[in-house]
């Protein structure tokens, strides 16, 4: 039953967006996130919304997958909107008991909703169109220049790779332990929250013990294969920017500069 869980939410397709270099996608997403917080006009958000929708279509992602991730955020979106509406000082619109809604609040609230929605959609697009392995590779390359500042780029990437490698193995094992405990009469499903949490102990203890044993053996195997950290290590797979990466990065950069320019005007 645990085996149905997929890691990340990568949707394997063969589109221009999927083929982009992971570094391009990570950098563009980061620039886009910055943009979201710089834009101050509703027209700006409409433009960014259209841009996002264009990418969704280009990447062949079914919109309902994105709607699902927005829906899970509905509560936070509503709460943010209400807080902005009533807590911002300014020209009163209407009164609700002791609370005063303002015009400025309405504006801020609407912007917040636009920002958060586009933020969620864009980051989902990143993980939907980039495999976890490609993401890890991209992150390692992007963090490399910061190594001198003490950012352990290689180590982080290695940890992510190993985690990705062992998630299915550990899920399989958890499933096995769960069945073994159920065969001895363990009950994982009934009772209140506390009771159910406590019933997980006979699952988690063996799982952890085994994970530590695995880690120990893996470390030995890695050492036997001459692993000694990122120093002097090469990679078989080399990332290479293509023409489409140039186009994508230029597009985002132009958008970014455009917004900065518009912001400078009254």
């Amino acid at each position: 039953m645990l085996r149905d869980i997929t890691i990340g939410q990568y949707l394997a397709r063969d589109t221009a967006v999927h083929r982009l270099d992971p570094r391009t996608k990570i950098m563009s997403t980061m620039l886009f996130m910055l943009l979201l917080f710089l834009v101050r006009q509703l027209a700006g958000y409409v433009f960014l919304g259209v841009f996002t929708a264009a990418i969704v279509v280009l990447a062949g992602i079914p919109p309902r997958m994105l709607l699902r991730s927005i829906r899970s955020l509905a509560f936070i979106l509503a709460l943010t909107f209400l807080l902005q509406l009533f807590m911002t000082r300014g020209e009163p619109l209407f009164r609700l008991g002791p609370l005063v809604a303002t015009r400025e609040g309405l504006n801020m609230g609407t912007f917040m909703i636009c920002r958060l929605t586009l933020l969620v959609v864009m980051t989902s697009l990143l993980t939907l169109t980039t495999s976890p392995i490609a993401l890890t590779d991209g992150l390692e390359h992007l963090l490399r220049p910061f190594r001198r500042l003490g950012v352990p780029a290689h180590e982080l990437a290695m940890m992510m790779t190993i985690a990705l490698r062992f998630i299915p193995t550990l899920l399989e094992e958890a499933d096995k332990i769960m069945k073994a405990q159920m065969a001895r009469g363990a009950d994982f499903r009934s009772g209140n929250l506390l009771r159910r949490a406590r019933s997980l102990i006979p699952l988690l203890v063996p799982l952890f013990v085994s994970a530590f044993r695995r880690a120990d053996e893996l470390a030995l195997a890695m050492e036997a294969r001459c692993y000694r950290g990122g120093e002097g290590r090469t990679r078989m797979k080399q990332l290479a920017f293509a023409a489409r990466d140039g186009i994508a990065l230029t597009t985002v950069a132009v958008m970014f500069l455009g917004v900065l320019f518009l912001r400078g005007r009254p």
Partner: protein
Amino acid sequence: MDGPLIRLEQVTHRYDPGRPDQVALDGVDLEVAAGEFVAVVGANGSGKSTLAKHLNALLLPTEGAVRVAGLDTRDPGAAWEVRRMVGMVFQNPDNQIVATVVEEDVAFGPENLGVEPSTIRARVKEALAMVRMSEFRARAPHLLSGGQKQRVAIAGILAMRPRCLVLDEATSMLDPSGRDEVLNTIRRLNKDEGLTVVHITHFMEEAGAADRVVVMDRGRVVLQGSPRTVFTQARRLERMGLEVPPITALAGILAAAGLPISAASLSVEEVVDALCPSS
């Protein structure tokens, strides 16, 4: 090259220096020639796994010395070259695969050695072909069978261009068909590629395929020789918690009963030929 590829001289190993009475290896002398297929057998706790980990400097001798192609494993500068030359496949297939894609895992070793990316790609391709796993190169390792995982692990070693392959009970967690896959692979690598193989196992029938069988008991090498000469010592092996393969045991009983058959027969065919000689 002159002399043996691996030479162990009076190797003693204690895991806990505070307890000198507990010795995992007790004065082991052993030589492995280049191109040889050696099987090391022994019951649990006989020290065979400890011995294996001495061959690639994962463990260092408390006393004595291990030399690989002339390099002393205690020399910290030589450890990585020793590990490149002597590759090791471990018992649990799941706990030695690092990457999320088969070919990336095979590339792990050469990447650690700092090999050129284009050369790595060529070596990975070649290594996967040698273990007949080329069609699985883009698969996720957790979807492979145990035997296939061990073959990927072997490919990962081959891509480092080793001189010797050590299998530390690499077949003990596999089902019979997985065991056959791995055994056929190492036998082929030994014959066709001239790769030196040290196969640590507690399955006596697997030792039958080796050039030489080394029997370990309580940290010592107690018996060694061709499978035939070792298997004739059925009683002695049993006292050490080892059993000769069933067909050899049967041949022994038949020979004792006066039938014209060698007590050290290794295969069913051999027994059939001895009992019913075709005219």
